[in-house]
């Protein structure tokens, strides 16, 4: 312990801080202030701070408050405690329908999408002629993916008299209305999600480019076949990328809104089979005018995604391999 208080800046503070890294940082800051550049960085950061607090932090806190109220958007919010949350879990069958649809959607579409993305990335990681064109072609669906137009096309393709049934007709199979039958409708959404595998594919491709050639050469000399090389070298080395894509796609999957809204015409039907969570949240807030309830739904979604992410990070310790 030293009591090396120097100037007036620290004079008012008690008890005296221990000297060490913290004290040194302090001195650096004071030095910076003396040089006259102390507040400039904050001026340049101001727009970001305004955005962070005005558009993210404040609305989040506001929505947390609203989640404990009965708020219809039009008249002032009324505090009702945890009622929104208890109602959700005990007395709202549509909530459970939406949870079911969303979990099914995420748990089926994400693994399929990642497997397809990795497979195509490996195929596209070759010195082929015109490889750029192929890569662009495979990425294209993702560029269009979020667009309402594609979801509308999807409705036409998988409708009762749509292209997909025409295609099945070539093989003598009589199709059905895939969109408006409760057993298949969510799978058309899953298919749409899997089809848009471009983003994880590009990330996989970038990862594959970084894998060391020499390891493969050594393996080839030892007589390792294609499959062995994939499972013993490529996949283990790529686990950080797989992990990253997994987190990203799960978060994305939970938030999916546009395709469900468009394909089901905003109804989430038939029988709530395409009532993805975000769609239900939107309907509650803007159609049924239950914004307090919608805010509560948003916070439950937030916690669920945070939970999934946390579990992934913990589980990741056992299968993700890093260099450092």
């Amino acid at each position, binding site marked *: 312990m030293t009591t090396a208080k120097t100037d007036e800046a620290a004079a008012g503070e008690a008890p005296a801080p221990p000297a060490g890294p913290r004290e040194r940082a302090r001195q650096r800051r004071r030095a910076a202030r003396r040089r006259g550049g102390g507040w400039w960085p904050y001026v340049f950061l101001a727009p970001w701070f305004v955005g962070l607090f005005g558009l993210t932090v404040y609305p989040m806190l506001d929505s947390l408050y609203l989640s404990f109220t009965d708020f219809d958007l039009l008249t002032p919010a009324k505090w009702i405690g945890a009622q929104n949350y208890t109602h959700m879990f005990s007395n709202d069958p549509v909530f459970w329908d939406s949870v079911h649809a969303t979990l099914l959607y995420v748990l089926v579409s994400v693994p399929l999408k990642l497997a397809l993305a990795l497979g195509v990335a490996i195929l596209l990681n070759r010195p082929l002629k015109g490889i750029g064109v192929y890569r662009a072609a495979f990425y294209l669906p993702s560029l269009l993916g979020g667009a309402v137009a594609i979801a509308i096309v999807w409705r036409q393709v998988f409708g009762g008299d749509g292209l997909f049934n025409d295609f099945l007709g070539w093989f003598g199979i009589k199709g059905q209305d895939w969109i408006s039958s409760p057993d298949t409708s969510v799978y058309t959404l899953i298919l749409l999600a899997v089809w848009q595998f471009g983003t994880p594919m590009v990330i996989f491709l970038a990862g594959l480019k*970084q894998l060391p050639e020499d390891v493969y050469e050594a393996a080839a000399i030892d007589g390792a076949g294609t499959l062995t090389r994939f499972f013993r070298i490529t996949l283990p080395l790529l686990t950080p990328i797989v992990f990253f894509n997994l987190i990203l796609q799960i978060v994305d999957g939970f938030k999916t809104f546009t395709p469900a809204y468009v394909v089901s015409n905003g109804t989430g039907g038939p029988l709530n089979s395409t009532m993805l969570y975000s769609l239900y949240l939107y309907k509650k807030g803007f159609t049924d005018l239950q914004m307090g309830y919608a805010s509560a739904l948003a916070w439950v979604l937030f916690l669920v*995604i945070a939970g999934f992410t946390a579990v992934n990070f913990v589980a990741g310790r056992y299968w993700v391999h890093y260099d450092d």
Partner: protein
Amino acid sequence: MGHQISRRTLFRTVSGLAVAGALGPALTACAGGTGAGSDNGSLTMTWWGSDERHAAYKKALAAFEKNNPKIKTETRYSGYDGYFDKFNTQIAGGSAPDLLQMDTALVAQYARKGILAPLDSYVGKSLDLTGFSKTLLAAGTVDGKLYGVPSGIGVNQLTVNRTGLEKLGLKLPDREWTWNDLKKIATEVRKKSGGTIYGVDDGGGSTLQCFEIFAREKGQPFFSDDGRKLGFTADTLQEWWEFWAAMRKDDASPPPAITSAAHNDLTKNAVVIGKALFTFDSGVYGAGGSITDVQLDFLPTPQGDFSGAREGNFVNGGVLLSATKASKKIADSVKIMDFFAQDPTAIKDMQLLRGIPPTEKARSLISAGLNETDRRNMAMADYISQRVSKATDALPAPVPPPKGADQIWDLLFQSNLAVAFGKKTIKAQLSEFFDQAQSILAG
């Protein structure tokens, strides 16, 4: 080697951002407050409808502005989808329109929340409602005050593909027909078409044009007078669902996939896609202009042939014009309402695009210029409103639907679908329906 990806480089850059960025929008979608109308000099007016209706509104408004050069209007219009979602957001954001087209089914909800301006102080002064019947004005009246000027008579009728019926050698049923007659002709359509066309679209989940009338025939309104309960019994709904289950079994009505596809999508309506000849969805014609090429005709919703049945039909207000309370231009908005209610130019421009005109005077003004289908539509509306006003055993017109009504209508639709898809028995779905409806109306 150092070729591998390190934890730091990967996560420092992306993961935190991705999670935060991803969740932000979901959570921040929910801020709000209440606010007032626009204030940039011109009066904003919104409506929903078909292209024909948009054109007619704009033409009429141009004439209005010519006569009232001090009032400038700024118009916004769209389809029905999302119209009220947008309106809600605008109110919350303080940019609601001054004058808007309002849905009869929703006027009570907005009036009671204090969004709409009461119009009583203008009536007889700048708002001339001569010729509007009391029952019609009831559509815009909530708790004794007038909040909307009805644009036309709304009646509950079926739209019929007349061409298709003639092709099968079948005759249009009599206007005094029963639910059993409907079943008979729908079955015949199926038979005569060689099993290619169903008769009538599935009405088991339809509310306004359909089940509500069936229940009223038994003296049971859809909602109780105070709006806190359902007005009909489980027996009534059971009988209704059993009727439609039988219709589906006989292929008189289409399977649920077709019904479900048409939910919120008029272009997939069974009559529009040629899969049925009768539909309860008035939108096929009523939104102003037909969306199919076939010749259409109209019939009142059938009457009950069950014991104790009485007149279940009623007349409502079609669409309405309402002013928002926060607007600073209510007086100007009222002038425009008056113009659409009484001015010959506006009446002729709008024709049937906002429903059958509400006054005798307006109807005679346009009747000469109507096409064949429009004339049939108007004649049937005339017939129904006369029959309803003559009926001695009819219930009074329904009370304005309570808060949560649209959730209950949706619940009815989904319940019928669950039965039709075979996911639930009628008995099981009945108790679920009543449980949930009760919880919606109580909350």
